[in-house]
């Protein structure tokens, strides 16, 4: 087991705790546009949650809400180094913690 792996695991543990106790944990749809954050948990189950995670939305991934579509839904989110559109209902299942600015 490499050092990087252990370090990543520790970060995720810290983030997980933040999700349950920290005041900074919000769901992705409540994240203000432009704020940088990190995913702490994907709470959904089934095909959508799996697809979200396959697309890189896993605990520890950096995210930023870019904007919402003209009718308020769906959202455009920057994940890792690409842009993803997802509905608010799906964004609700993703917990994030805001980075310190």
């Amino acid at each position, binding site marked *: 087991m490499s050092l990087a792996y252990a370090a*990543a695991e520790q970060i995720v543990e810290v983030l997980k705790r933040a999700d349950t106790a920290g005041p900074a944990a919000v769901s992705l749809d409540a994240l203000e546009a432009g704020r940088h954050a990190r995913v702490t948990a994907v709470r959904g189950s089934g095909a959508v949650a799996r697809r*979200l995670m396959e697309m890189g939305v896993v605990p520890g991934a950096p995210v930023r809400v870019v904007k919402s*579509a*003209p009718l308020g839904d769906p959202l455009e989110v920057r994940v890792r180094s690409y842009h993803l*559109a997802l509905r608010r209902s799906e964004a609700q299942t993703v917990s994030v913690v805001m980075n310190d600015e």
Partner: protein
Amino acid sequence: MSSILESPPQADAPAGAGAETRQLVVALAGNPNAGKTSIFNALTGLRQKVANYPGVTVERKEGLWTLDAELPPARLVDLPGLYSLDAASIDEEIARDILTGRMEEVPAPDVVVAVVDATNLERNLYLVTQLLEAGRPLVVALSMVDLAERSKLEIDADGLSSALGIPVVPITAKTKRGLDELARAVLAAVGSKPPCALWRLSPKAEAEVRRLYAAGAPSREEALRDLYSDELPADPERRAAVEAARARLSGSDPQWWQEPLTARYRWIEEVTGGAVRGVKDERPGSTERIDRFVTHRFFGPILLLLVMAVVFQAIFSWATLPMDLIDRAFGALGEAVRAHMPVGLLTDLVVDGVIAGVGGVLVFLPQILLLFFFIALLEDSGYMSRAAFLVDRLMRGVGLHGKAFMPLLSSFACAIPGIMATRTIENPKDRLATILIAPFMSCSARLPVYTLMIAAFFTDVRLFGFVPVGVLLMLSMYLLGIVVAIVVAWILKHTILKAPPPPLVLELPPYRVPSLVNVLYTMRTRSWLFVKRAGTVILTISILLWALMTFPRSAVKPVPDAQEGAAVQEMRETGLEGKGESAPLTAKAEGDTADEGAQLQQSYAGRLGHVLEPLIAPLGFDWKMGIGLVASFAARETIVSTLSIVYNVGKDTNAESPSLIEAVRNAKRPDGSPAWTPLVAVSMMVFFVLACQCMSTVAVVRRETNSWRWPLFMVAYMLVIAYVASFVTYQGGKLLGLS
């Protein structure tokens, strides 16, 4: 780099020596938008062919790739774009089946080339981790290297290669940089064994994997797949072991299934952490700056409308010139053949059945080419996803997916490519709902009907002195189709296709300058598919229709003089007084055309028209229009040529020919009243908007849904709606005193 258990060597891995004697099979896999198409085109050039996988309309693209001048070229199979091997869509299922050797038509690939977008490494590498687990010889083709360099990302290909344990070849498809290196790497990889999955789960989960291996799973990878995939192993002992393991894991953590996904990404971060240098730019890039306008709250929808307007304009007006040329060319060809062949049934079959049938297919080619030109352009540039992003909220209102937008828009040109395009929709119910409403979009085949009706009754008619009624009617027909489609979609999604609103997880790829080569290739392959797929059906129907209108033949071919008597006789037999009919007949009773009119009346199609008359009279239609309707169920536009034959003006007329328009205006009912009135014309247009009169659509839906149930349901329900709407139009119009 540790792996707990070593997999036994694969039995079917080809020996290095055998590879030279037979054709190698190479599969090209990668995420959508990763640059796979460009690489495929660069590797194969024109040596590619497109077919279908059996039972589904997923395109099967294959080409020949010369790996080495000394060897026979390899078979390069281009897989549909996929994010993961855990299939969510048909495309992904097919790709997985090929990669795992489960697809009968394609032998398991000797080498898999994974195309990885250098500007989006982490997500692209997710598929690579799964491909590594699948255990086939693997080579990574690193695409978009030039773009990565431009955004100051420096990727150490060698470092990446040693971290992944497989060759990594940087490629620039445009300048063909790296293609030779890729060929060499693929040849060298034949028979190799990629390293096992290097990522690890939590100790608890690893213990379960080990336990499953001990319980009979052939390898660590198999054990992992058993534990986490949807399918359970067939063997009852292994199945019991897997179920017990899952129960233990889910007891302590309800999200236990997420572990391999998270673990793969953690490993990817480790790999890229060492191989990528340069600032990881988190500031908005050029794509985001373009999107400030393109998906802007206000300008976004306006731009979308503009784009749609240009596409429409192209399909409806730019395409007419080549369409006319094709139409005329086939007309001339038919005439030439007729002039050089003896008069008789065979000539009729060749000219009216085969040549007219082939012409009827090819006449759509300019529209299909133009439509796919725009679709390819919009898709390649990255705009298409933005369109789905913009309209998703609207589409969801009727229970559809943002991705349904493009198939529906395409259906305005032709429902066939539109229905083919629904395969990007993952949920089968959403896909089916989209397929079932696609034929309501007014396709180009309805245009000749609208044109004829408007030209005959609404030219120069203006509302309030300046609004041309013809244009208004044309627009209303398009709107009618859209409104009915929305209502039907809503009903379908709340009854037989009841399902929660489909999820949307859609990549918005970076904007890229579309490659002209890719666009041209797409046009070529798509139009060829159309010609082949729709062509065979339309040609068959065309011949069938010809037979319906030609048989039974009168025993003695009537001479022009006797012919009119025969027609009158025919009308008496069917209880119609022939007064009104004889006027146009004598006026035009010149040999062939009159012959055809009489022949048509006594043919099966003519008799069918008579049988139908009581049924369609409430819609304002007479038996001659009935013949047109019967014919139009093969393809809508055939009503124009059928009416030309019915009205004895010769069949080489089109919707704008003055003789046909004149004949329609002058056609009389047995009681001497005009057969067509403006109200009848509108009723006819309404019927054509809503009825599914297109054998090719039925054939395509049959293929897409893999059953006769849905296409038959579609024809039936659309016919009912069309009948009711036409009835309401005609009877309602009469009540209002219109005629």
